[in-house]
């Protein structure tokens, strides 16, 4: 019977074509939108993790209390042996040390007098020992001019800062700030290149130097304000991050010592947990609205189709089929159309996602004035299970439409349906 009915559906163009197009297009749009939101979220997480939060971050307890102020005077000092222990205990993580501070950048003229001066955010990162930061911050791609520092005493500066301070590659500059003991600190650097991340928050005014230079300037040998940890597979896993954080804090952190290390997950920092929650809610709302809209369209299509098929229903009632069975077959047809339509939509949507996953989508026009760490190019991304979940709204909306349309069969008197045979 089921084969008989399905055969009927796919032989009647009116019965399958319109719903199939609607479901396919709907699922395609949904898959693509989900991939875009996922891609945006992924880019957002990558940017924030890479530039700011890490997947996990270790700081001193005192530092964590006022983390937004980046109080490098509360840094962890002499951390190498502790870091070795952490690396051993959590082999799934990669670690990198950083110091971030706000400083004044002084640009001298030929006589050594100040020519230009401006505020700058200084990132002390590992530029010389390992290639991890180059990879994390995508420095090779972000390099606009010059080269990445190859020896101590060299620095990268953002393109906008370079222009604002009328700098040239090779110019000497002086960083002016205070060391961790509060004394005035100076450090001379040479600009080796410029960077442009496509993230407005960074591009406005950043300077990157090797962490050894910044340690020297701040008089904190072997210290780091923040130690960032990243999952080796590159993807943030909230559950695993929470598990590691709980284990770390139980094992290595002492609540009575404000200079003992404490681990924070990405979701604990910069409202990231809240933002990720919003995105997840948005995905849920988007899926729900999609189901409702598609359901209404398919209900209308089902009604039109139902009216066209009153004659058929009449014959089927006369032959001995019950209203309940006819209703059931309408739902079954909807399931078949939903499954096929969703499969087409998922396939086409995934192809679109694949294209933009490779080539990326330029959204710089929307992020130009953003203060968030977002990238100008979004690479759509959709996990397989999310793509396959496209079947749920695709089938659900067709079934919903069929149920609403099929209720008309119940509301009508049997003889009325029969009369509509126009006998």
């Amino acid at each position, binding site marked *: *019977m089921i084969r*008989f009915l399905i*055969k*009927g559906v796919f*032989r*009647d163009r009116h*019965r399958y074509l319109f719903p199939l197009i609607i479901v396919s297009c709907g699922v395609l749009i949904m898959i693509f939108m989900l991939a875009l939101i996922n891609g945006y979220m992924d880019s957002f997480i990558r940017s924030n993790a890479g530039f700011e939060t890490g997947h996990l971050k270790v700081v001193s307890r005192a530092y964590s209390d006022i983390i937004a102020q980046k109080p490098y005077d509360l840094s962890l000092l002499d951390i190498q042996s502790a870091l070795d222990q952490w690396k051993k205990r959590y082999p799934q993580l990669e670690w990198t040390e950083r110091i971030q501070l706000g400083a004044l950048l002084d640009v001298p003229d030929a006589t050594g007098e100040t020519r230009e001066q401006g505020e700058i955010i200084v990132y002390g990162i590992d530029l010389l020992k390992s290639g991890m930061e180059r990879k994390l911050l995508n420095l090779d791609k972000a390099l606009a001019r010059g080269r990445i520092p190859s020896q101590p005493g060299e620095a990268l500066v953002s393109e906008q800062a370079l222009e604002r301070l009328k700098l040239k590659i090779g110019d000497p500059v002086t960083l002016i700030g205070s060391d961790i003991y509060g004394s005035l600190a100076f450090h001379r650097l040479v600009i080796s290149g410029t960077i442009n991340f496509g993230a407005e928050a960074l591009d406005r005014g950043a300077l990157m130097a090797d962490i050894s230079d910044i340690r020297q300037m701040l008089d904190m040998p072997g210290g780091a304000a923040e130690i960032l940890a990243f999952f080796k597979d590159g993807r943030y896993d909230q559950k695993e991050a929470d598990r590691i954080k709980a284990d770390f804090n139980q094992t290595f952190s002492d609540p009575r010592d404000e200079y003992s290390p404490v681990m924070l997950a990405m979701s604990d920092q910069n409202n990231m947990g809240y933002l990720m929650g919003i995105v997840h809610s948005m995905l849920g709302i988007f899926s729900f609205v999609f189901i409702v809209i598609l359901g209404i369209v398919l209900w209308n299509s089902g009604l039109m189709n139902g009216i066209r098929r009153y*004659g*058929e229903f*009449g*014959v*089927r*009632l*006369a*032959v*001995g*089929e*019950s*209203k*309940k*069975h006819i209703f059931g077959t309408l739902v079954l047809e909807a399931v078949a159309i939903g499954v096929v339509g969703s499969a087409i939509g998922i396939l086409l949507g995934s192809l679109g996602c694949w294209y933009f996953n490779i080539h990326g989508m330029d959204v710089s026009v929307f992020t130009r004035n953003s203060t968030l760490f977002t990238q100008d190019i979004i690479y759509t991304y959709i996990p397989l299970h999310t793509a396959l979940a496209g079947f749920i709204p695709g089938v659900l909306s067709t079934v919903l439409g069929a149920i609403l349309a099929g209720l008309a069969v119940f509301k009508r*008197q*049997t*003889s009325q349906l*029969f009369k509509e*045979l*126009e*006998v």
Partner: protein
Amino acid sequence: MEDPIVRIKNMSKAFPTGESEFLALKNVNLDFGKGEFTGIVGPSGSGKTTLLNVIGSLDTPTSGEVEVLGLEVSQLSQKGSSELRSRHLGFIFQTYNLLPVYDVYENVEFPLLLLKMAPNERRKAVMDALEWVGLTDKAQSRPAQLSGGQCQRVAIARAMVKKPTLVLADEPTANLDTENSLHILDTMQKINAALSTSFIFATHDQKVINYLHRVIKLIDGKVVSDDTQTGA
């Protein structure tokens, strides 16, 4: 009449028309026996189709009793009336009402699928039915590829495939020319004789009336005559 398969007693059927109601059938009393070849005749609007609908349990009477094969129609549940139609009744319509997306074989097979008959038995029953109506060579054709007469013969095969006790035929020749009309009437008459299937027609076609053994005349919802014809 001994053991009638349809017994109608003081039956009336009214349809609401705004605030009042239209009485389509008025105090009808009729019995139909097994193997009858009977026609309900009368002008349009006389209540012929309404009477067939009530007998076919597609509609319920407003008052009175209608018993079909020992079952009181007004007391049947949805499932009960579906089962009655599925197992014991066959319908033939003026406009054939074949399912256009299915071929001839599948149209005839459909009632048997509802009866959950085994595939082998089903195949045999369908081919037998197509043989009765002389359409075995058209089994794979779609209704759109057939003439009106052939379509009506498929409809007869569909009604007869489950070997029902009673066939209700509503104006079965209205859309057919004389030659095709006579052909399908001959077919139905042969089936009636061979299988003792009862036929009740609603018609005002003289060609059909000539074939009937019993003619019940209905005017304005009332039975005005009930005559047996000899030599039909």
